[in-house]
């Protein structure tokens, strides 16, 4: 038991990450780690490099320098589909739903990493293929129930609300059976009620034993649900710790007060 805990101590570790786009340095010396079975948030002002970290961890970008380790195994420079297979899944800030697939088909695509049927068995509809197809369908149904969209399964995403489309993306990400899920601004564009629902859902995901790493602007949501917070500013980590200590950190306050004031002004 003790040893198992040791092994899974760091589910994800990011070491000395650097990412350049042309001449622009988006990330520099970014290091942090994520323990299993917790909710961790990455916060920071716009352009701090939060989504860039997600894109590197999920394999869309490869880092200019540095390492990404998942369960002590290097995953930088692996392509996204292989990373998905290893147990990392994600959602997208600007929704990347499949508009040409029904809601349940969207989620069924998520079942890809743990299923096998190839061209031939799909064309011939072998018994094995039918059994697998049934398993995929049932799993997708289960997940739609989990996020509360069971009755929308045969609709196309375009007829869903923004909030519901977000939920489809989360169900789709869960369908890969991940150990770590990256949620990119899950509450962006949601109203107060929906944000509370989202917080509950994120908590429920964690309760399933899936580690959650999220990027979020909604401070209340972040401070409410996460056990650990990393603060990023202009591509560097400036603070890391429990929400309470982050809220007291002066450097963080200095960065955030400005932004909070700005947000307040914009609202009024």
């Amino acid at each position, binding site marked *: 038991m003790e040893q198992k805990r040791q092994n899974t101590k760091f589910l994800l570790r990011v070491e000395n990450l650097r990412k350049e786009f042309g001449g622009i340095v988006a990330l520099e010396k970014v290091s942090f780690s994520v323990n299993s079975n917790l909710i961790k948030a990455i916060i920071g002002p716009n352009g701090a490099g939060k989504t860039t970290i997600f894109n590197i961890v999920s394999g869309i970008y490869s880092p200019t320098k540095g390492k990404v380790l998942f369960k002590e195994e290097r995953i930088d420079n692996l392509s996204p589909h292989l990373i998905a297979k290893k147990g990392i899944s994600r959602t997208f800030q600007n929704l*990347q739903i*499949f508009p040409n697939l029904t809601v349940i088909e969207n989620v069924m695509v998520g079942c890809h*990493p743990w299923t096998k049927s190839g061209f031939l068995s799909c064309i011939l509809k072998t018994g094995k293929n039918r059994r697998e197809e049934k398993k995929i369908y049932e799993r997708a149904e289960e997940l739609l129930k989990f996020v509360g969209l069971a009755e929308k399964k045969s609709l196309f995403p375009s007829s869903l609300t923004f909030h519901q489309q977000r939920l489809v993306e989360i169900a789709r990400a869960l369908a890969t059976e991940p150990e770590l899920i990256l949620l990119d601004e899950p509450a962006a564009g949601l109203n107060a009620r929906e944000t509370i629902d989202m917080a509950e859902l994120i908590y429920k995901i964690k309760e399933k034993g899936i580690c959650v790493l999220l990027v979020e602007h909604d401070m209340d949501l972040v401070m409410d649900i996460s056990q650990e917070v990393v603060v990023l500013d202009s591509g560097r980590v400036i603070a890391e710790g429990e929400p309470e200590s982050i809220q007291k950190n002066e450097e963080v306050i200095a960065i955030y007060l400005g932004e909070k004031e700005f947000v307040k002004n914009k609202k009024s």
Partner: protein
Amino acid sequence: MGKGNLSGFLILTAFILIAPLLVRNPYYIGILVFWGIYTLITIGLSLLIGYTGQISLGHAAFFGLGAYTSGILSTHFKLSPWLGLIAAVFIAAFVAFIIGAPALKLRGHYLAMATLAFGEIIYIVFNQWISLTGGPSGFGGIPRFCLGGFCLESDFTYYYFVWAIVLLAFLASLNLIHSRVGRALRSIHGSEIAANCMGVDTSGYKLKVFVLSGALGGLAGSLYAHFVTFLSPGTFSVMFSVVLLTMVAVGGMRNIWGAITGTAILTILPEYLRVFQDYDILIYGGVLLLIMIFLPEVLVMGIFNLIKKSLKKAR
């Protein structure tokens, strides 16, 4: 495969079975054979373009590669046309693999340009490799398919032979679309990045579906060669690639049924427009324009819905 698709497929099969009995005129049966041969290519194109979202402007080349491979092997080398058919499929698939591996890294217009160039190169090879292809004037005397003592000489028997293959390919594609692989292909069209992050090997799938569509083109080419028994490069020009693309577009890109109807319209319509003599091309263009404006994407669905409505009324 859904219920609608199954009944649609049965109706199609019934129609294919009785169509030549209604037409009778051998010339028109020939047209129906061409419809079947071209449908094989457009089924592949529909999977590639409509479902996976990868364009190709070079599919006439795969059609040509299949035709020339099968034609040359059975004529110059006296091999059985059946061997030619198998070789045609493999050569087309192999070339699709070689071309697709680098080309499919490109997107949108760039992929269109690359496949267009490929089509042009193959067309030039057909014209210039005179010792093998006979150059611009082509070559004839390609044998027919024979099984035992029975040869597929008449258009009537060839029609059923071709359409048996087309229907099988169509059924296979219907199965494919509504499966794990089909969803993966469609998800690439929807959002390549998201598909990739959900564990779909996007470049692998794109290449496989490109090879599949190339192989279908090669198969169609072999069927063409042993039907027409004469080959010249003109048939396989880039212009024909455009026609193939138009067939898929007119029928409706996003539905495999579109391939079969679009091909029917573009193969059969020009024959009926002959009565307008000099104006046929003008009217042809006009009809295509009207279809694209009033029935975009869903030509088959539009027709289906009309039939459904009238059936309900009849009840």
